[in-house]
């Protein structure tokens, strides 16, 4: 393309940049304003990078952060991967945040694949907070704000054992993935089994438990684990997984599910087969709480994504304005944003709130 003699400077720069030459000439004075002045009144740039933009859990985070941004004088950018496993999408969002001159990153890390990019961001002076999913290793980020998934699992396990109360427990486990290992997956699953008082062998591995044996919680009794199926965290996957489990053993009476959409799918499979079972889950989204109210789900451990996002954002805004850094919860390597067991059938010795109480503080629409 021939450049006309009267081409404006930006165009020349653009051409130069396109050919990766003479970039120095294009730097404008405003580019150098990126360095923070520590002024309390300047808007603080923060990016929230979730795994995807469709999971109601992440949508709740985005909504919560958006609603809270103005109050904290934060210039918030929302980004996410395309889907589970899209490390590239998150890496790109991290690089963009560095280039934009943001002060901090809130991220639900997809996998260890994003660690290098997070390291780059921290080297560039950004404060990085992981939400919901602690990275591996934990010190990849400055701090993690998350649910204690092990604790969430234990609570639904104790409650389930209380429901079976000494009778034989025939258990179906519907996990998140079969093709990769993520901490949320084994912490909830293994936590559930620990809550029931079942020996989990390797506590970071789903499905290595003895298929039959004794559970000790809620009075104790015999258990049979029928299956570990992956439902990918959504309804259709949950249904397919439950159908497979029922084909193996139609006598299932306890169903653990990784989250409520999975539970709804599992319930549909049970209904179609004309069976009933006690379904437990984790998440506490508003739809999930409704499922508890209607009796589809027996109990769910509610978590608080809005709190994760808003507290994270407030923390970054505070640090950017010269304040204190947040600290981890006593005895944990992350900041625990808490869980509550939501059920309308309280079990002996397990603390819980009703579905009505849960619906007041649930996330999602």
């Amino acid at each position, binding site marked *: 393309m021939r450049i006309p003699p009267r081409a404006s400077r*930006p165009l020349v*720069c*653009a051409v130069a940049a396109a050919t990766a030459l003479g970039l120095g000439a294009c730097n404008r004075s*405003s580019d150098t304003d990126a360095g923070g002045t520590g002024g309390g009144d300047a808007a603080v740039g923060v990016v929230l990078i979730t795994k995807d933009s469709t999971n109601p859990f992440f949508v709740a985070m985005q909504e919560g952060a958006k609603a809270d941004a103005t109050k904290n004088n934060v210039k918030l950018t929302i*980004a996410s991967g395309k889907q589970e496993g899209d490390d590239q999408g998150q890496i790109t969002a991290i690089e*963009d945040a560095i*280039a934009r001159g943001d002060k901090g990153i809130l991220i639900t890390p997809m996998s260890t*694949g994003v660690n290098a*990019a997070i390291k780059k961001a921290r080297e560039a002076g950004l404060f990085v907070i992981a939400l919901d999913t602690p990275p591996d290793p934990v010190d990849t980020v400055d701090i993690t704000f998350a649910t204690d998934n092990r604790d969430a699992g234990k609570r639904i396990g104790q409650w389930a054992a209380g429901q079976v109360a000494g009778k034989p427990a025939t258990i179906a486990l519907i996990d998140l993935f079969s093709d990769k290992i993520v901490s949320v997956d084994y912490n909830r699953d293994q936590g559930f089994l620990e809550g029931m008082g079942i020996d989990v062998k390797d506590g970071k591995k789903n499905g290595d438990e003895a298929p039959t044996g004794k559970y000790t919680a809620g009075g104790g009794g015999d258990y049979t684990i029928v299956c570990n199926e992956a439902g990918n965290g959504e309804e259709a996957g949950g249904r397919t997984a439950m159908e497979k489990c029922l084909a193996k053993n139609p006598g299932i009476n306890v169903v653990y599910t990784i989250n409520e959409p999975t539970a709804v799918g599992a319930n549909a499979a049970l209904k179609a087969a004309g069976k009933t079972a006690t379904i437990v889950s984790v998440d506490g989204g508003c739809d999930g709480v409704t499922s508890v109210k209607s009796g589809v789900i027996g109990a769910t451990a509610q978590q608080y994504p809005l709190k994760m996002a808003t507290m994270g954002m407030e923390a970054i805004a505070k640090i950017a304005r010269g304040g204190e850094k947040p600290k981890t919860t006593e005895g944990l390597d992350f900041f625990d944003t808490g869980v509550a067991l939501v059920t309308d059938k309280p079990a002996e010795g397990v603390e819980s709130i009703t579905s009505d109480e849960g619906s007041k503080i649930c996330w999602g629409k």
Partner: protein
Amino acid sequence: MSTTEVTSASAEFARRQQSPVQRLQHQLHGKPWMSPLFLLLVSFLVFFILTPTFLTANSMGILLQQTAVVAALAVGQTLVILTAGIDLSVGAIMVLSMMVMATLARDDGMPGILALLIGVALATGAGMLNGLLVTRINLPPFIVTLGTLSIFTAIALLYSGGSSIQADRMPDTLNFLGEGFGIGQFRLTWGIVVVILLYAVIGFVLSQTAWGRYVYAVGDDAESARLSGVPSMRILLGVYTVAGLIYGIAAWILIGRAGAATPNAAPDANLASITAVVIGGTSLFGGRGRLIGTLIGALIVQTFAFGLSQMGVDQQWRVLATGVLVIVAVAIDQWIRKVKA
């Protein structure tokens, strides 16, 4: 193609003959990659005006780094599309090759260079399999690669057991293309150098060798090419095989970029590579297009994504912009070709 001077036309046409738009149309018509370049420059200008962090040395380096993987894949995709085919298994071959490289060399199970060669050879074989199915069994490329997309994706998951492999468990050879160098804030990776070499070599082959001319001929009309002595089937098989080789090289670039080998990485690589080719002015009907256009096409998509992100625009709008770009780019292309009328 020559720009024929149109002299006899309607009065209205004659009046517009002198307009700058008309002149531009003429200029652009001579070179199919001109309109995407024009689009790229316009987008640079727009983002330069709209956001202070866009046109900085640091940002330009990042932009190129973000474009590298798709730009590499799109070289292979261009070859296939030039022959009037389409390759939906691009990303799957890349990821399979990446998982094999990473797994073989994990904790130095074998020297990095050997694992790399095996990974690239495997990708080449995978491309060859596509080529054999297209040429020997005479199946449409769309169907073949739709099938192999699932096959290679599944093999990658089965082979890797679904777990990712971290950069620190791989030898330096595999991570090398993620290493950077640069002047001040302007950082490039060796991966970008490899991409530039890919474009130079394949670009040369396409434009300067008999094989390159055959590729265009087969894409234009396979039957008449065959009748005029072009070994169509051999050319097609070669195209898919070379494409596989390129996806293997892209796998190496991806490892360096991601800092890990993940079996479900790059979920949109297949469509992203097709998008780059189409925006770059290569015809989906085969036989028309330039490799340089593809590079520009990949840069346009990434420029919009990056520019909008620098403005703090929500991600869904960036995806929407990509869709609009595809349609606008092809529409501009059609408008330019009207000049022939």
